């Protein structure tokens, strides 16, 4: 079995320039993603969570080069994705796909569902003619739709069905890795559960790796093997699912988890209310980007000066906080 990670991201950075004045001079930058590093193993789901504007979506797009990263490296199955150009980049895209949040916005309204799914097969010369039709029917069946749905247009489907179409389209080219960008956020609870189950079934059947981008921590708790928490363009905590939910270490993660409403009337809640809003990524705070809102009892001047590295404080549990001591976990 191949134990090297399928995807290895190091120091990924995306700064969007801010241009002002008639000459459109670059006067600053939105630091949307700032030195983000992580691995995704074969068959693994890594969740990227955080609130709006934290850079999770940009991270997903930058590693597929849907936006060009400013710096960093992305290794996919040993290939340096950021060095690829033209035809070789197109060939690589076959292996790395994306499912978007809004399946309606991402499907061409004038193209039948069958044509949309078929397009990838033809572009990558995987099938044509009757063989392509057969594959389309097979894919529709695999995502829980009917073969005759291929002749219909996107507007004829419900939100959940459209998301299944988006998934079928991504699967058509037989990728090893899929970026799922908020794939269930726009769906109602009852339909959301169906799509979450589908994604997990497909992963098992095909050995897929996912980067699962979401803001809903409850969905992440049911999808992910490991979870990375982002705040203002950086990963501030990365841990196996159980460790992240049971023993979060970064004060931001603790606040985020405590803020999720629990569907249990009268339950006691130890809620950590964060003051204020996340600061602007144009001019992020010095040192630890979370320090102005941080409730950590040991917070001091050092937090405003030192950029905390993402350190392994317990096996597999990475935390970006200089006030969190490493813990020795007893080995069985």
């Amino acid at each position, binding site marked *: 079995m191949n134990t090297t990670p399928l995807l290895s991201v190091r120091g990924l950075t995306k700064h969007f320039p801010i241009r002002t004045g008639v000459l459109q001079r670059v006067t600053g930058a939105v630091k949307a993603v700032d030195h983000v590093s992580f691995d995704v193993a074969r068959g693994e789901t890594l969740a990227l969570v955080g*609130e*709006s504007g934290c850079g999770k979506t940009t991270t997903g797009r930058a590693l597929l080069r849907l936006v060009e990263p400013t710096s960093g490296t992305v290794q996919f199955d040993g290939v340096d994705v950021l060095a690829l150009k033209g035809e070789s980049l197109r060939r690589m895209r076959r292996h790395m796909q994306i499912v978007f949040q809004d399946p309606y916005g991402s499907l061409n309204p004038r193209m039948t569902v069958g044509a949309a799914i078929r397009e990838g097969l033809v572009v990558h010369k995987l099938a044509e003619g009757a063989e392509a039709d057969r594959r389309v029917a097979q894919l529709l069946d695999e*995502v*829980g*739709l009917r073969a005759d749905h291929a002749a219909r247009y996107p507007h004829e489907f*419900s939100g*959940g*069905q459209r998301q*299944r179409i988006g998934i079928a389209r991504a699967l058509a080219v037989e990728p090893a890795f899929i970026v799922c960008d908020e794939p269930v956020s726009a769906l*109602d*609870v*009852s*339909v*959301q*559960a*169906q799509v*979450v*189950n589908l994604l*997990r079934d497909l992963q098992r059947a095909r050995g897929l790796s996912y980067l699962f981008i979401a*803001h*809903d*921590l*409850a*969905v992440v*708790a*049911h*999808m992910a*093997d490991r979870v990375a928490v982002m705040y203002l363009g950086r990963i501030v905590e990365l841990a*196996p*699912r*159980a*460790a992240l*939910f*049971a023993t979060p270490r970064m004060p931001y993660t603790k*606040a*985020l*988890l*405590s*803020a*999720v*409403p*629990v*569907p*249990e*009337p*009268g*339950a006691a*809640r130890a*809620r950590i*209310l*964060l003051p204020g*809003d996340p600061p602007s990524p144009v001019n992020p705070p010095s040192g630890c980007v979370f320090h102005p809102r941080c409730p950590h009892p040991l917070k001091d001047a050092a937090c405003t000066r030192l950029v905390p590295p993402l350190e392994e404080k317990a096996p597999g549990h990475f935390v970006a906080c200089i006030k969190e001591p490493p813990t020795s976990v007893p080995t069985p």
Partner: protein
Amino acid sequence: MTPPRDSHTLLDVQSLQVTFPGAAGMVRAVDGVSFTVAGGETVCLVGESGCGKSLTSLSLLRLVPPPGRIESGGHILFEGRDLLSLDEAALRSVRGRQMAMIFQEPSTALNPVLTVGDQIAEVVRVHTKCSRRDAWQQAVDMLAQVGIADAPARAKQYPHELSGGMKQRVMIAMALVLTPRLVIADEPTTALDVTIQAQILELLRELRARTDMALLLITHDLGVVAEMASRVLVMYAGRVVEEAPVAALFASPHMPYTEGLLRAMPRIDSAQVSDPDALPDRLVTIPGTVPAPDALPSGCTFRDRCAYAWDRCAREEPVLYQVGPAHRARCHLVQEPERRTPHAASTASREVAA
């Protein structure tokens, strides 16, 4: 069917019906909804998209967008007066002053070319005879009360200068500035991040405790319901399908739809989540999708998706049966509880795609 009105009943909605013209005749988007809200109470209206919860709330202020209209035959009694029979002027004196609304999208509900202080002061000046200066002062005080730091300076800012959480605080300030008896909040935190949602829910709880206002909260999030509600109405396909005090609803839901919603919701506090060795089990799903209002099944509108449905459900439309004190459910299972065993066929069969 409607519980007897007590002296504290603030709002009493009876047989509310909202229709829209459809391809094949009028479509009933809200179909015979009845409920009450007592003074100081928080009632949650829950359901998925298209169930009619937002239309119900808009009807209370007679803000149903045309060509939709409220059919005659129903009543909306607010402190004993029927809002459906008031003229525009009388209605205006109720809106904003005694009954106010907080919308989901503060960025579209606020006027972009007026400062937020001016917008709040305008509400005060429309409804009370007070000077420009007093109105402004009340606006600033209210902004401070909803937790906006440096309120005198913020009041002079325009909506685009504020964050989403702050805009929602402004909306709340605008709704509460005249201390209305009833506040209707339509998904007030859905567009916000979870840490900001926590701030806003905390604020609503605190204001409710301080002012004794009643709150009608429209949401799809059962977590929010558990934290805020005293009583819950579950809506499905334009109707109330279950009504119960919050604890009873979560402990013993009677309508299979409510049961399905509660089980389909992923939770971060379940034991499986903290088991490092295995991914949690599959989520429980409700098969199928909400039917379109012009294509409702006969009998019970949920029967196509229900694991318990039998022939009676297709034949006979269930009423809201009483199942306990203040607990009612629109399901024949209340009368035939022995049928509460899911069909082997439907559970084993493949999930129907939605």
